[in-house]
């Protein structure tokens, strides 16, 4: 489709761009204030409009936009909604956060909008150049935000680590893409597949180039062995940014991985199954990656004392669970990833919101500072417990059905051993998640009550309610995930 007629499929992104510009300009016209001021309103409204606008895209048939640069398909629409919703929540969380510099509020919000735009583009790019540019758009913004805190020390360390690891891994990814271009002579991802499958190329270079691209995606999702930045950055970055990285950035990594891997390296084989190039066992590769990632994440989380580091390792473990869906090599696998991401969005944002409230009020993010939280701040404690139960994957929470679907997808593809590894990992994870529950409920701490912004009560309830409700009525989300697993061929 040509550029002009593509614009009607591009409304959410256009809205984001306008928001970004308006927020930047509003800085010139407006004096900074505490709390919900003009730029914040602007960002929230912009995100909201973009989110509403993305619903308009659901019915439209899948097409290729902008001369083959960008895809419009249910898969892309899903991720647009996912990223915009997540950014909206993060803006909401940031408004009253004491960790983010507030005389640069509009800068912060503009960067956030830019990252969101980059993420939306990453999920829909079908051309290597476009893909790389989108990733850089989001990455550079993320590096800035990781260092966007009041204090130096850990934050600076986090930002530097994030930049160095990021630059390295995107560099390697670019290298991989260039090799692919050299092999096939095309930048179009589907074109790469055509050439590869036409020549039935089982050249080791194909595997190598894909592994290089995997480094870039693996870095974003924090899969082992590209996860070393994760605990340090999560600990050092401002909590709202950590929450954003843990959900949206991970989502982008998976969007990128699925889009690139399924479009370039696999061929649809009917009935929702995909066939790979002969002589390359992708299933085993991803299964091993998944098993190692979840095990390393869970074992790494055990000895942590800092809650943000613990949640970082938990995020690594969850990347491992999510990779099961890719290892399945089926549309069901993709659907299970999308499904899980929805569950993970609510769960993780809830957990980080509670962490943020505590950091704001007490400046503490060590687990012992959660002692007796139930007495000191009942609602955050209960909500945190629900989130942790969901992260463990126990009924009656969304995390359970999310994991169940991933397990089903992997089992269906014959990865029995992987499912066994995954369920045993869930048992292990119970131990460290419940260390926090234990501190909050079973142990007693100081008697001082912890007050918090009243608006957070509403946000906490609105974020935590879906964790319970999505367990009981997960049918609609399931259908959505199954529908959105369709990609442009």
């Amino acid at each position: 489709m040509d550029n002009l007629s593509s614009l009607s499929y591009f409304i959410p992104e256009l809205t984001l761009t306008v928001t970004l510009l308006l927020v930047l300009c509003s800085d010139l016209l407006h004096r900074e204030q505490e709390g919900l001021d003009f730029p914040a309103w602007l960002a929230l409204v912009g995100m909201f409009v973009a989110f509403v606008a993305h619903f308009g895209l659901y019915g439209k048939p899948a097409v290729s936009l902008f001369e083959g640069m960008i895809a419009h398909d249910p898969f892309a629409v899903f991720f647009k909604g996912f990223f915009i919703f997540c950014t909206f929540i993060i803006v909401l969380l940031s408004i009253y956060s004491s960790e983010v510099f507030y005389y640069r509020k509009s800068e912060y919000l503009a960067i956030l909008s830019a990252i969101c735009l980059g993420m939306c583009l990453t999920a829909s790019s079908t051309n290597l150049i476009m893909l790389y540019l989108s990733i850089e758009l989001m990455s550079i913004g993320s590096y800035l935000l990781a260092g966007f805190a009041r204090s130096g020390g850990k934050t600076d360390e986090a930002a530097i680590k994030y930049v160095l690891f990021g630059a390295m891994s995107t560099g390697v990814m670019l290298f991989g893409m260039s090799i692919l271009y050299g092999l096939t002579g095309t930048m179009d991802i589907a074109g790469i597949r055509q050439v590869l499958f036409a020549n039935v190329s089982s050249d080791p270079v194909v595997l190598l180039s894909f592994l290089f691209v995997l480094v870039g995606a693996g870095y974003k999702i924090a899969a082992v062995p590209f996860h070393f930045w994760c605990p340090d950055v999560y600990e050092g970055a401002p909590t709202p940014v950590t929450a954003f990285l843990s959900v949206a950035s991970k989502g982008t990594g998976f969007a990128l991985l699925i889009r690139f891997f399924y479009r370039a390296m696999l061929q649809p084989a009917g009935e929702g199954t995909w066939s790979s190039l002969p002589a390359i066992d992708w299933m085993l590769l991803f299964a091993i990656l998944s098993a190692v990632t979840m095990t390393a994440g869970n074992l790494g989380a055990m000895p942590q004392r800092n809650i943000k580091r613990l949640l970082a390792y938990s995020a690594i473990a969850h990347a491992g669970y999510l990779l099961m869906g890719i290892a399945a090599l089926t549309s069901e696998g993709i659907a299970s990833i999308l499904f899980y991401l929805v569950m993970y969005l609510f769960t993780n944002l809830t957990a980080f919101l509670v962490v943020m409230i505590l950091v704001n009020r007490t400046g503490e993010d060590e687990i012992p500072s959660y002692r007796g939280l139930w007495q000191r701040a009942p609602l955050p404690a209960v909500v945190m417990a629900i989130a942790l139960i969901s992260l463990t994957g126990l009924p009656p929470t969304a995390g359970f059905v999310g994991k169940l679907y991933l397990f089903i997808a992997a089992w269906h593809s014959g990865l029995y051993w992987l499912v066994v590894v995954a369920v045993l990992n869930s048992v292990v994870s119970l131990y460290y998640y419940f260390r926090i529950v234990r501190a909050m409920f079973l142990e007693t701490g100081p008697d001082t009550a912890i007050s918090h912004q009243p608006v957070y009560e509403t946000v906490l309830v609105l974020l935590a309610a879906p964790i319970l409700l999505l367990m009981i009525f997960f049918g609609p989300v399931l259908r959505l995930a199954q529908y959105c697993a369709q990609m442009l061929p």
Partner: protein
Amino acid sequence: MSDSGPLLTLITFLPLLGMCAILFIPSRQKEWIKIVSLIFTLPSLVLGIKMLIEFDPQVGYQFIEKAPWIPAFNIHYYMGVDGLSVPMVFLTVLLCPICVLASWGIEDRIKGYCAMFLLLETGMLGVFCALDLFLFYVFWELMLLPMYFLIGIWGGPRKEYAAIKFFLYTLFGSVFLLLAVIAIWLATSPHSFDMTQLNEQLLQSGVGATFRNLCFLAMYVAFAVKIPAFPFHTWLPDAHVEAPTAISVILAGILLKMGTYGILRVSYPIFPDSAKWFAPVMVMIALINIVYGSLCAMAQTDLKKLVAYSSIAHMGYVMLGMASFTPAAMNGAVFQMFNHGTITAMLFLLVGVIYDRAHHRDIDGFGGLAAQTPIYAGITSLAFFAALGLPGLSGFISEALVFLGAFPTWPIITILSTSGIVLTAGYMLWTFQRIFLGPLNEKYRTLPEINARELVTLVPLAIIVLFLGIYPAPMLNIFDHAVRELLNRIL
């Protein structure tokens, strides 16, 4: 059958409604919180009795409620009871009000306690009523969370350790159940969670014996942790000793039955051939449970730990009966599940009574209490005699049935198992002697007698134990038909 309305839904979810109601009562109103939670356990009891009366033993599943829940996965909200579940549902609704009464002394954070307790009741009843495997699993896991908090917050000195140990053990078991559930669901076509149909559907899809045996084993691990069968039993003494009295009652009275109930409800009907294949192992584990549990009980100095180990031994009888596949043994096993629920509940309540007064549970630290507290001694002797299987009390009937039925199938093991009776009599009588007989310990010259509230919790159970010991037919009639149906499937 359907004219009774959503009876099982009401029974199961009324406590949950009570939990929501409690959340709106201010924490200061401690008395009101207890009264409201008691009130919300009573309708389930009344409806449970109604169910017991209306239940027709000659028909299979009754009071069925079935509605699509998640059509995309073919999950149904499917509730129903048969002869195996009715006694368990009744036991649960009976013990729950008793446990609320037994918790009357708790003052610390009572709101959370009652809320968790009511959530636990919903979870337990759901397990006994669910006929959809997914629903079953959800209730099965739902129960763990309140239990964790109940042990962990209101428990004894080592409560944190006991709570997480309980949770880790049971979750370890449950994930194997989850694996089996996924495997079964994917093996059926169309995919199905319907417990009543799964056997036929699996036969149609032609899964091999290895698959069935592996699934059976995975499920067995989940249920064995709950029973608890050797070697998964080590969480039990810790959890029982640390839990508050009422929660020990629930643990021993109901939670342990879920293990054996799960085997009878899920594993046996779906994989009858694997049941036979596994029976020799199960009967060995039963023997170990009986002998090892009794010997451990004998060695204890802590009264609560003694009762906990006696539970392990008594659940061994249930497993022995289940592994024998004769009508008498199976009936005995189900009956023993019910009887153990009432008898052990009494034992734990009695331990709670003495602990509230003396603040310790050291068996050797008492002496001669029969003179000081004759009523308490009388009721305790009834419970002890019931536990050791004295004729005329309900424990005798079920144990005798188990041994009678098991002997033709496993003669040598049955003979060895009967040593459990001698051992049980040994430690029970020895304990009774150390606590109640001999000269009165001077420290307890002013020990108050059992009070009216505590009597209210004990007397109904004592009446049931006595009544079923003399005239067990009404209870046996309820599940005899269901047991025979199950046996027909297996044999």
